[in-house]
């Protein structure tokens, strides 16, 4: 007999039991409030821009602007300029597809997904179990990473699927996901906007809720 095997098994069982107990924990009131606060912060994501891109050149010292929302694409607009139209006009020279709202399936599923996360989070509040909350956190992290990849892929596709008959041939490129990059005569800067920050805030609050209930659980253990 290998005593160490027993020890390992016992230890694993203990840990699994701990996990079971952990997932079965009730959420504290503070955790539930944190989740609700998160949902409150998540809802404005429908209205706020998630990302913005600024294209600065000598001709446009104040920059052409592009704002990406959960459900739509919006160019900067002044009485003297329509930036989305201008960006598309300029991009046709290098054979880039025009940026059309209808080409972005994200604009259909993103609002749905955000709504679903709000519902799932509220479900965790009502049921009040750690397992439900962890579900939301894990799914949301996955969703966040997937969205980032999807956004990067968009940028990649626009910069690489260039019309071979375009008047100006450029090296295929990927506009920056974060930060600044020089593309032809434009300095292109991409930054996350308030919508993205709100989504991060939502996940942080959920993680805080997990942490608070977990800490409470640890205290309960020491108390008994």
């Amino acid at each position, binding site marked *: 007999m290998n005593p160490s095997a027993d020890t390992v098994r016992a230890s694993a069982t203990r840990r699994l039991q701990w996990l079971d107990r952990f997932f079965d924990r009730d959420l504290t009131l503070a955790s539930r409030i944190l989740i609700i606060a998160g949902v409150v912060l998540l809802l404005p994501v429908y209205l706020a821009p998630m990302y913005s891109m600024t294209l600065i050149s000598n001709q446009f010292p104040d920059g052409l602007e592009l704002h990406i929302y959960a459900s739509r694409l919006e160019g900067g607009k002044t*009485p*003297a*300029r*329509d930036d989305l*139209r*201008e960006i598309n*006009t*300029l991009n*046709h*020279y290098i*054979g880039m597809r025009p940026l059309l709202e209808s080409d972005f399936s994200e604009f259909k599923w993103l609002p749905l997904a955000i709504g679903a996360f709000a519902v799932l989070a509220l479900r965790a509040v009502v049921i009040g179990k750690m397992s439900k909350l962890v579900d939301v956190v894990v799914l949301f992290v996955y969703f966040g990473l997937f969205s980032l990849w999807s956004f990067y892929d968009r940028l990649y596709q626009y910069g690489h699927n260039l*019309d071979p*008959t*375009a*008047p*100006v041939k450029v090296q295929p490129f990927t506009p920056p996901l974060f930060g600044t990059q020089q593309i032809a005569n434009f300095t292109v800067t991409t930054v996350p906007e308030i919508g993205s920050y709100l989504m991060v805030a939502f996940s942080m609050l959920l993680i805080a809720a997990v942490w608070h209930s977990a800490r409470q659980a640890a205290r309960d253990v020491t108390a008994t």
Partner: protein
Amino acid sequence: MTTIRKNRWITAALALFVAVAILGTACRGRRKRAAVQRGDVSEAAVSTYVAPGDLDEFYLFSSGGHSGNIYVAGVPSMRHIATIPVFTPYPGTGYGFDKETREMLGRYTWGDVHHPSISQTNGDYDGRWMFVNDNANNRVARVDLRDFKTKQILGPLPNVSGNHGSSFVTPNTEYILSASRFSAPVPRSAYAPIEQYATEYKGIVAGVKVDPQSGNMSMGWEIVMPPFNYDLGSAGKGPSNGWAFWTSYNAERATGKLEVTSTQKDRDYVAAVNWKAAEKAIADGKYKTIDGAKVIDPKVTPGVVWLMPCAKSPHGADVTPDGKYIVCSGKLQSITTVYSFDKIQNAIQKQDYAGNEDGIPVIRYDAIKEAEVNVGLGPLHTQYDDQGYAYTSLFVESAVAKWKLGTWEVVDKIPVSYNIGHLCAAEGDTMHPKGKYLIALNKLSHGRHISVGPSQPEASQLIGISGEKMKLLYDAFTEPEPHYAQMIKVETLKPIEVYPKEANKNPNAIWDIKDAKVNRSGNNVTVKMIAVRSSFEPNRIEVNQGDHVTVHLTNIEQTTDELHGWGLVDYDINIVVDPGETKTVEFVADKPGVYAYYCTNFCSALHQEMQGYLLVKPRGAGATPATAGAPGPNRGKLTASK
């Protein structure tokens, strides 16, 4: 009156002496002045320097005289920024080539732009429109200051001959003034031998009505006047609101060599019109319709117009900002006459008259004269600042005199180069002048610029008027010929730079390449075309010789400064479309062959490639249906219909 008489010979002699002296010593005098001013050079340079990228403080709209244009410059830099064509075709903006502006210009190819006048509300510039007169073809025009484009030309105005005393506005832009400089038989088609000038020739003073919403001009009232030469006008404001004043020369009713024949009497007249009374007379039906205009005869309808004696050969009439005084300057006297509006009203009440001209009462001069200001030789026009000073241009003396309203004392004088006509102070003809800057609009400029041969430009000199002493700051040179100008605070104007797509109501506008089409109906070929960086769609138009071709061109850009032109080789056509604008050009394809059309207004890196072909099949070569070109490599499919 006595002063006028005493001054008569002295003035004439002085004027001649000074004129000769100026001509004789122009060169030496100039060098001397330049030396004197050198001490102020750095100050002048700093106060007029507008660094690259920085913006000016005022707009200056200078009339372009017989060029038919208005020139836009910035003050204090004095940089010419844009030209607004009004009465003359101007290929630079395609003005006079497209259907709309061609029809607006009618059969005329030039006009003589004299007195721009910015629309007013409560006696101050509101920056909505600018009106301008055509001295040659008796017209008035309206420029929209939203897009700096000529929107309406009215005229030739019936009965008016030589519309010089125009286009000054009333304080709420109810009317713009108009007057005959060259009296002639009325209506314009009537004939009378020149010997009957004194009795059969008539002057006209008039008010052209302005729609307060649209700015649309229409005929208001006209008054038939004795055959003097009506010169310059000014509308009353504040207490004198409801009145208009015009100077006139040739009280002699002379013909022939006017230089002599019209300068024999000691005085001429200023016509004072109660335009509210004129309005009422029209409403009461007290008028005769002559050539479509409602004309008031002062003999039949008194109480509308009076005559005020003035120092001889007066030119400018300028109401003071408070509206209490009318300042009129006689070219051939060294004084400027100030009339009191109150005194005019009293004299009219008391019928303090000294006679009449064709039934129009002449008010006794001494009853209405407030002051005679000894400004200097050859006074012409007066402008005002924000500190109670008046500035009068002195043509013969080549100087500007600064004098105080109220004390009527001349406090400063500055020489200008040379022979100043009009002058323009910042909002200097409104109820609230802005001061700071004054422009001397000089007729002669010789030696002040690098030589350009015999055809010399005019000079616009910038003078600082903030301090006690006037300071010459900058010499600018202007296309012929600034007769008057308007200077307005930049913030008052709110120009657009793009015509928004939603606001384009032209039924022939198209915004999608799939709508670009060539349609044929009999011998009429209609093309709906798009211009966008860097192509025209369609880029091929096939027609038959003799077809009537109509091209509706829409610039679908929505970015400022992205203009496109459409020049058709050998067909004498060039139109320019601004972002979001649609223009129509019509022509008969009478020349067979193949003709390129191309973008004339540089737009982009591939501007040179922005072109297409008009293919005109010779007569008898077998008719072809009109077709459009194949779609470009990056463009949507193009449908050609037959």
